């Protein structure tokens, strides 16, 4: 699964076509899985992806949501500003075959926080990670099991998924907040 991806300019990242590729690859993963795949979207961009995948893959029940806010390592400097989404795991987490879904993998700190959050609810059998875009610059030993695209951006830029009212996904680039 970990074939090296060629880096693309961020301006060429088409979220909708990347999503279609993600869907295709997840279809194969779900078909091969020994136990039910439980999708868990990472707030906030990953939640849209997970809900959409859940429907498009025809999986039973609804996708889970996981928030990193309770385990963030920058709480003392950034506070609780991002606490709008709460973790919701509508399935038994103990023994579950979890696929975390996120839009962008970057430093790896969110994934570290999310893993801690997940384990506060129980002990999954396995946790894997699928993302649309891997932008490198890892600060922790975290890798995605499935990344659809790679893009190198300077640290001063924030790559963020947004969703229009009709549900279309687009990537936007903004200046990193101070």
């Amino acid at each position, binding site marked *: 699964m970990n074939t090296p991806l060629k880096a693309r300019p961020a301006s060429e990242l088409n979220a909708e076509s990347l999503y279609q590729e993600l869907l295709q690859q997840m279809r194969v993963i779900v078909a091969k899985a020994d136990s039910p795949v439980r999708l868990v979207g990472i707030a906030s961009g990953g939640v849209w992806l997970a809900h959409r995948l859940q429907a498009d893959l025809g999986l039973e029940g609804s996708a889970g949501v996981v928030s990193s806010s*309770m385990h963030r390592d920058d*709480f003392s400097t950034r*506070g*609780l500003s991002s*606490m*709008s989404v709460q*973790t919701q795991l509508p399935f038994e987490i103990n023994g579950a075959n979890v696929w975390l879904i996120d839009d962008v993998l970057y430093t790896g700190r969110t994934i570290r926080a999310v893993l801690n959050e997940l*384990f506060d*609810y*129980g002990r999954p059998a396995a946790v894997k990670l699928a993302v649309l875009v891997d932008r490198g610059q890892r600060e922790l030993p975290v890798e995605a099991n499935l990344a659809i695209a790679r893009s190198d951006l300077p640290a001063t830029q924030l790559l963020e998924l947004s969703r229009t009212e009709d549900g279309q996904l687009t990537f936007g680039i903004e200046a990193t907040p101070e």
Partner: protein
Amino acid sequence: MRIQRNPQLNANGELIHLLSTEGLSKDVLTNILDTATNFVSVSDREVKKVPLLRGKSVFNLFFENSTRTRTTFDIAATRLSADVINLDIARSSASKGESLLDTIDNLSAMAADIFVVRHNESGAPYLIAQHVAPHVHVVNAGDGRHAHPTQALLDMYTIRHFKGDFSNLSVAIVGDVLHSRVARSNIHALTTLGCPDVRVVGPKTLVPGDMAQMGARVCNDLREGISGVDVVIALRLQNERMSGALLPSAQEFFKSYGLTPERMQWAKPDAIVMHPGPINRGVEIASAVADGPQAVILSQVTFGIAVRMAVMSIVASHDA
């Protein structure tokens, strides 16, 4: 930059101490309630703890006894992974003659991060807040007759939980308003959050006249006071504070102001009944009401933990 700053806020308008609901904006109050929503579910987790205050020390300084409030602060701090030190000041240094600020200096030297203070003197938490280092936070757990902001916030959380929002609500606060810091903090919070009809209900001897200036309507008749209200907050008759002949007797109070199922029919059919606890059955509230379907008194206790977690985590994330 304001010239005279609210001592609870830093220069960016962020909450650094919680001393009173008075003078806090709707945004600050709403942020506390919204943050608390996130903490309610922590008790449903297999691991009932989040690490937001890991490595921080919370000192519970209770110069006046209160097992329940101290316990809920203790649980809230523990669920945030803080280390909690409970000091029964009433029985230690103060009784040996040490001044309040000397006590604080000594505890600060033991690397306290948050002081949770209850004191029988109004204003004691303000004095401490002005004295401590910029990274140390003070949460008022009740001072004299002045304020009990976390109780008011958990009351607001409970009202919002059951009634949605404040814009069309009628709320009656019934009983010993005179001695009640809960009543004062609730009136400030309710009016700030946009509640259009706040009533204070009780005998003239127990309802101070200045309540109208705070935005509450004074009613000396219970029927008038709770007619058509959505929320009834019964206050505890503060026996231990009752010096002087303000009331003939507790029984006399119940006769005129006690909440009974019959009298609750004057309120809206879906009205909720709240009480800060501990309740005096048969004094301010009949058992049939306290244990009845309209009572949300135990929900208040549960929400109180989440609200105190929210307050401590918010103040801890801001420096002076």
